[in-house]
């Protein structure tokens, strides 16, 4: 299917971070991988987990939980890497995102989506484009491009600078685990 066609359908991939359910539009999702060994890149911000081999390409992997202000991912049998293609400053970039578990692909029509809550969210709400109410639970709709947007990339740089200075004090938080 062509990309434009993909963008016009209302299918979303839902996944869990902790107990919360999130959704990303299927046009952003390239594939879902089970956990493999992640090679940590030294002197990187904490949420940059490292790189993996994706069919011969080197793919950066982001710990989505840290990115969203949660505790770092603990690796379980359900932990997955969702490979996404996002736009950063007009360039498309492939990135692997760690999620606690992948749920399903759902049809969510636009009228099911409500604007995001402005306050009271325990997550960094700027990445959330809306909330969908399905049955009795809420799903947070993610704006994937925004997660990796320009300012965010700047933050990456800034924290890399910080990282440089704090390097000696920082201890390894999560060692790579093979899945």
């Amino acid at each position, binding site marked *: 299917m062509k990309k434009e066609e993909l963008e016009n359908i209302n299918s979303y991939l839902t996944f869990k971070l902790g107990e919360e359910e999130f959704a990303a539009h299927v046009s952003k999702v390239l594939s879902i991988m089970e956990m*493999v*060994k992640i*090679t*940590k*890149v*030294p*002197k*990187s911000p904490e949420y*940059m987990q*490292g*790189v*993996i*081999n994706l*069919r*011969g*390409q*080197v*793919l*950066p992997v*982001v710990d989505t939980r840290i990115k969203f202000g949660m505790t770092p991912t603990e690796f379980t049998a359900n932990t997955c890497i969702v490979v996404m293609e996002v736009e*950063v400053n007009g*360039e498309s*970039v*492939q*990135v692997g995102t760690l999620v606690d578990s992948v749920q399903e692909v759902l049809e969510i029509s636009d009228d099911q989506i409500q604007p995001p809550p402005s306050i009271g969210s325990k997550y960094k709400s700027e990445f959330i484009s809306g909330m969908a109410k399905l049955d009795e639970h809420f799903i947070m709709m993610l704006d994937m491009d925004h997660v*990796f947007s320009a300012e965010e*990339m700047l933050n*990456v*740089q800034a924290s*890399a600078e910080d990282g*440089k*200075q704090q*390097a*000696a004090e*920082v*201890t*390894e938080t999560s*060692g*790579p685990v093979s899945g």
Partner: protein
Amino acid sequence: MDKFKKKFLEEATDNLAELEEALLKLEQAPNDSGLIERVFRYMHSIKGGGSMFGFTGLSDFTHHLENIYDRIREGTLSVNQGLLDVTLEAVDHMKNLLQEDDQLSPETEIKHKNLTVQMMQLLETREQKGAAEPVKNNPGQGEQQKTYYITFDPAEEIFDNGTNPLFLMDELAGLGDLYAMPFLERVPLLEDIDPRRCYTHWEVVLSTTEEEQAIHDVFIFVEDQAHIDIRLLADTNLLADASFRKTLDEKGQQDQGLGLDALKALAAGCVAGEAQQGSAEEGRRVVEQVKKDDVLSSIRVGSEKIDHMMNLVSELVTTQARLSLHAEQSEDGELAAIAENVQKLTRQLRDNAFDIALVPVETMLTRFHRLVRDLSNSLNKSVRLVTEGAETELDKNIIEKLTDPLLHILRNSIDHGIETPDERLKAGKPEEGKITLKAYYSGASVHIQVHDDGKGLDTEKIKEKAIERQIISPESILSRKEILELIFLPGFSTSANVTDVSGRGVGMDVVRRNLADIRGEVEVDSEPGSGTTLTVKLPLTLSIIDGLLVQLADNQYVIPLSAVDKIYAARHSDVVDTFNNLIVLDGERIPFFYLREEFGLPESDSETEEIVVVQYDNNRIGMVVDGVIGEYQAVLKSLGKMYKYQDMISGATILGDGTVALVMDTNKMIDRFSEEHQKKIYVESSK
């Protein structure tokens, strides 16, 4: 048609490059008829293609040039400097015409007119000279085979005049190669046929050396009883092209006429394919032969396709390593045999793929010859460029980035190295300066040496200059080699007065930096009075490096072997509980970095450590790792945009088990570590 146009642009660019090269050779050997023939052929192909694809400006312009060279070919005009100057300028102009297509910029427009006038003048001179000789109507076209498309649609009552259309066909066939397609779809049922009427019409493809008029003459008596249309298809003999004929055979079976458009498209395809074959006058056999050679010897592939192939091959190499590992561990004999075969094939495929990405040094040479020619003329020097080992091959990405630094080196040689003819004669040298560009393999690298027989570098002058620019202090004592090395420092230029050629102060330092980008090095050697030699050392390919695979905590890293000096074993306590990070190795005190600490990893619990001593400028620095695994050929991959800020790691490579190892850039790494240590000391001392 756009596809054809693009194809034509590519072909024409190639043809222009070939033309330029041939012209430069012609300058050396003005009487070489083979070269003149080549020059003529390239012009002809460009002209033919140009008119076919609507580059009329280019085509007309080239036509004049072609006329000049046709006359040279006839021997009624001789090659001389002035003529070549105009031709080369015209070639440059043709490049512009190609780029600008129909919308000419004012400058191009003016240039176009000037050059056209100049060419006409060149032609004039010869016309006066040759007036006495019998000249054919249009000698430029005289022996040229052209292909025409003729529709002959006679009126039904044409027989009434006693005309037999078949005789006309015979007559046409007498003019050259004929391919006639009769169309019978108008023939009625048998009972309805009137034998006095003509129901047939023809479409004819004719390749002939005759002028169009001759074809008209064939039909001169039936012109008002038939619909006749004669169109030029191509400036070559299309019927000599087997594929064109075959297509005609297939299409001709259909009831409907082909129509001009279809044929033109067909012809365009053939001409585009044929553009490099040269003119068809050498006969069909030769053309076919050449074509066959062309097809076999090279094809054109987009460079992104090659990049993609290289990626796939490196992926295959890593996958194969996994297969071999698995086969070794399993009991299955058959699997082991298959794995071994796959390994063999993979190795061949890999070698082959890397070979495909290699380009000979030769591809850069035309630009160099041109530079030497133009520059020596404008400086009133006489310089000859001699090349050796032009067949030496390098990765295409390296070649692309190598051209500019080499041009700069050549420019320097001509401007600063080679003396004026007077000075040379006084020094007892031949009037003509000589620059030798030599390329050769040396181990896993390629060396390109540029040697000039000029005045050489004056070490005293360099030293003075360096002191004046405060690059060195007046009391410093430097070896000859160290003084020569000074020319690579930023802000250094030896020329007393700034010329527009070189010596703008952005000189050899830029060359060195640009070469460093492609992991190249440059060295200089000079003998006063007898010349200067610059040697550029380059890796064979950018995509694979020889590295040392080392273990550090859970990860493996690759240290480029070119940086590695020596490996030592050390006790854990020797590297952890030191005060100033110095260790004595081979009686020398060497500063080191404990990489686990620098990377923020926990201290290792092992008793022993290994120290990889690397070269950092002229110092030796130790990098302490958990252990050295061995040598490893690393296929370099970029870490991607997300890790752009990460400069200590120059890339990543995929290991046999599918995991990723990071490739260290030891220079940047040491820079950064030293910076951090200084900061730490500063912070501590200010407490």
